[in-house]
Structure formats: structure tokens, C-alpha cells
């Protein structure tokens, strides 16, 4: 038994996948061939950043690549995140780019 996670891209595309118990969202997206970006796979690099729109998604390891303010804003690292309910999550490379703006601008 797992949970349904609906992935929402900024171009309007959506896909819903079943994430098994004990499975990270990234592992499930890879199994389904959905091409959600990832890097280190241990919660340090932030490449797999998504934004939780709805539902309960928990980090099973410390998401080092997110600052506390990011976590308060709903950003999640999908390589170390598992759903505890059905969820909707915004995904894609541009979500990560929101985390740290150009400091000189």
C-alpha cells in the first residue's frame, strides 16, 4: 500500500504515480520514467527540489540542501521524501532555481 502523488510541472503537464511505502518520490518517478531532476540522492544538493501543494510528505533524512525558510515555504527534497498521504507536488528544474535568487539583482 502506498499513496498517489500527482506531479505538476509549470508548463501545465501533470502525472499521477503510486509511491510505495518506504519508497522515495524520486525512486518512484525513475521507475515510471518521468524525468524529474535529481543529483546526489541523499538530500544535500537540492537538484530534486519540489514544492508541496497538498498532502503530507515527510523527509526520512535531513534535507540539508534546504534552509529552514525554504522548508517553511513548502519546498521538499524529493530524493529523501516519502508520502504519508496522497499529495500534489510541483516539480521540474525551475523549482530548484527559486530557492536562491541572484544576490546582486
Amino acid at each position: 500500500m502506498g499513496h498517489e502523488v500527482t506531479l505538476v510541472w509549470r508548463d501545465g503537464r501533470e502525472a499521477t504515480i503510486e509511491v510505495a511505502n518506504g519508497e522515495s518520490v524520486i525512486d518512484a518517478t525513475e521507475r515510471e520514467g518521468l524525468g524529474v531532476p535529481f543529483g546526489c540522492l541523499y538530500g544535500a544538493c537540492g537538484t530534486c527540489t519540489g514544492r508541496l501543494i497538498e498532502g503530507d510528505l515527510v523527509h526520512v533524512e535531513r534535507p540539508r540542501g534546504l534552509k529552514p525558510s525554504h522548508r517553511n515555504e513548502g519546498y521538499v527534497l524529493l530524493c529523501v521524501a516519502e508520502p504519508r498521504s496522497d499529495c500534489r507536488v510541483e516539480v521540474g528544474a525551475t523549482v530548484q532555481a527559486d530557492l536562491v535568487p541572484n544576490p546582486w539583482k
Partner: protein
Amino acid sequence: MSTDEPSKTSEHHGHEHHEVEGPGYPTPAAMRTESEREKTAFVMGLRVGMDVDEPDFVGVVDVDPESETYAELIDTIEMPNKGDELHHFGWNSCSSSCHAEGLMRDHLIVPGQRSSRIHVIDASDPRDASIEKVIEPEEVFEHDLSAPHTVHCVPGGKIVISMLGNADGELPGGFLQLDQDDFSIDGHWEVDRGDMEMNYDYWYQPRHGVMLSTEWAAPETYYPGFDLDDVEAGKYGDSIHVWDWETKEHQQTLTFGEEGLIPLEIRMPHNPEETEGYVGAALSSNIIRFWEGDGGHWEWETVIDVEDREHPDWDMPVPGLVTDTLLSLDDQYLFFSNWLHGDVRMYDVSDTGNPRLVDQCWVGGNFGDRQEVAGHEVRGAPQMLQLSRDGRRLYWTTSLFSSWDNQFYPDIGEEGSLMMKADVYPEEGRMELDEDFVVDFGDAPGGPARAHEIRWPGGDCTSDVWQ
């Protein structure tokens, strides 16, 4: 001889020590004058941080003007996994093994900066290379290391890789040693890390028994992107470290403070007699010279200071962000890139303490007048540099690091980056953008890619160290 072929036979390049053959060249001058023009370039191609569902690759670019596929990406050696962020790479052996029998420069060691996966590529035929071995991240983490960066072969049949983090992507890093025969992990190179916590690039001068290493930050700090709050919190480096190459012990820390924030690439002269060098401090945008003073104590001074520039649309003055530096094989010219401004500079460093700016090439970036070359929009700005062995062609790519690209040049993340070239006239001390040479990694097979570090089969200015 064609230096696109693995170099082994010493007679072909006028070797003085006929009894022992090995890869590379006996002197930097021999490499500069006796090797032929580069015909093939290996260029890192990345998909990390892009909505391109493909792995990173090592690209093969044709740089032979006699060829029908000149200035084209003619092959891609795809990685078996996604998400590696290939960054810097190196050879299994270089000119430091020139007197070592039985070795060839025929394998590329290709680490994934984000994945910590290390690939070994058989490149004995540069135009038909293939992956021979993969060291999985778990094997690296067993040594409490992650985030591999600089790869150098070292004398004694070993390969040493600087590692920026521990197994959790936190501090400290260290150095991973591989065996040159079977590419198995030996363990840590260093025996006493001293007060070194951060790591990045390193260079060694075996004749003087010294190694120097630089500092970026913890992987967990630089991976997600560049944040000035992290600089203020002291999470970015401002020091370099002197090591005893023989005992593998940390000897001294040179702390630069505000003058040397984020000291990245380090270059020592190719002449193995020299006991000095340069490091480019990216955020301070300074070039710092360091040298061995009396009693083996190392000293430093700032010799080049790139002024911040006011951008009409930005709130704060913008540093150049010196991201790569390079010394020509004759040690006469120092080149470096200002990735945020959009130029690459050429200095005459014949008088090592008084670099003289001789030329500058502007293209792309936030201040470059020229934003298009041969019909290709320049996404990014000059970044990773590689100079031909004869010092007459300077090539560069325009991507820095996926998350930092996405902050400063988001177009790269959508459309890929470029490889470009300037013709260099060392006798006249000038360079000129080659408006006919553009390799657009936006057109890479499978989708756009970021182009990063460049290496020549046969060795180059940033691979080879002489004993």
C-alpha cells in the same frame, strides 16, 4: 607524432632518458614544441538541473580544421546513470609518469560532482571511447568522502582526487587515492589533515615535495546555489593549504580573508623548479600569488584585482567572479575568466610578481558587448578554459555549475551552453575571438546540455605536472 594517440614511446619526443619509457613529455617545452595540434577535445556535457531526461556525457568535439566535422560534437559517451553532474576530470597518467615504464595516458577518470560516482573511460582511441569501470557512490562513502573534484595522476602508480565533503555532504573533505592498475580505491591520500576542512582544487610540485589545495565550501552549502548569507556565515573558503607531498601531512594554512574569498583553481608553473604559483579567488575576484619563502614558510600577495562593476539593472556592484585560471606551458601567460562580467583576460607573467594585462576578450555575460557569435546566442560567459599545447588557441565553455548557472544565467538551464575559441598570438601578446568556431551544446543529441571542462588527448596545460 599525433598527440591524439596515447603517448608512450619516448623516442618520438626527444626523450633524454632512453632507458625508461613512459607517457607524456620529459619537459613542458617538449610538450609545447614537439606535440602536434590538438585534433579532438573531450568536453563534459551535463544535464543536471535541466528538464532534459538524459544522463550527463563526455562529449567528443572535432577541433581539427582539416576535418569535415570540424567544430562539431561528433560523439557522446553517455553515463550509465542520471544526476552525476560531471564537472572536472583527469588522466590516469600524465607527464609526471614520463619515466615510468608500462604506463599509457589512455584512461579518463570522470567523477560525478553531485553523485560521487567515479567513471573510468578507456580513451585509447579518442574517437571511440567507452566506459570501462564505474565506482559507485556507496564505495566512496565508505571512506567518509563525497563530491569528487580534481583528478591528477601522481608518481608511484596512483591517482589522487580532491573530495569536497564527507559522506553526508558536510565538512570536512579530503583526498581519495585510486590505484592506477585496476582503479580500485586505496583509501585516503592524506595521513594528517591538520586544520584543513574545506577542499576544492590542488596542484603539486614533486621536485619540491609540496602540494597546495584550495577551498570552495561544503557540498551542502554550494550544491543548492550561491547565497551571500552563507558567505557572511563563514561557510565559504578564504584559505589555501600547504602539504608535505612526501609525508602527506598538512603543513601550513595561508588565510586571505576578504582578499581571497572562494579560492578555486590553483596553478603552479609547469617548470618543476618553481616554488610559486597563482590562485584565483572567485568571489573577491583577485589573483593571489603565493611562493615559498625562507625556511620553507609560504607567503602570499594579491597581484591582480578585478574591480566590481555597476550594472544598471542590479542593486549591488557585480564582481567578475574569477572562476578558472590557466598558465601556458611556457609559463609566460596567465589566462582567467570573469564569468559574471563576461570576459577572459590574458596577462604576461614573465615578471611573476607583476602581471601585465595584455589583452581581454569580451563575449556573453552581463557586460559583454557581443552577445552572439556565428548566429548563436551566447548563453553564459567564458568559464572553463583550455589552451592548446603550443599556446596559440584558447578554448572555453560557458557553464559553471548547474544550480549556479540557473541563478545567474538561467538560459543555460533551458537551452544549453557553448564552447568557443580565441586565436592567441603569444609573440604579439594578444588574442582574437574566432567567430567561426562555436559548438552549441544546445544542439546535443538527446537535448540541450551544459558544456564544462575541456581536455586534450595527449595532455594539456591543466593536466600535466613534471617531476
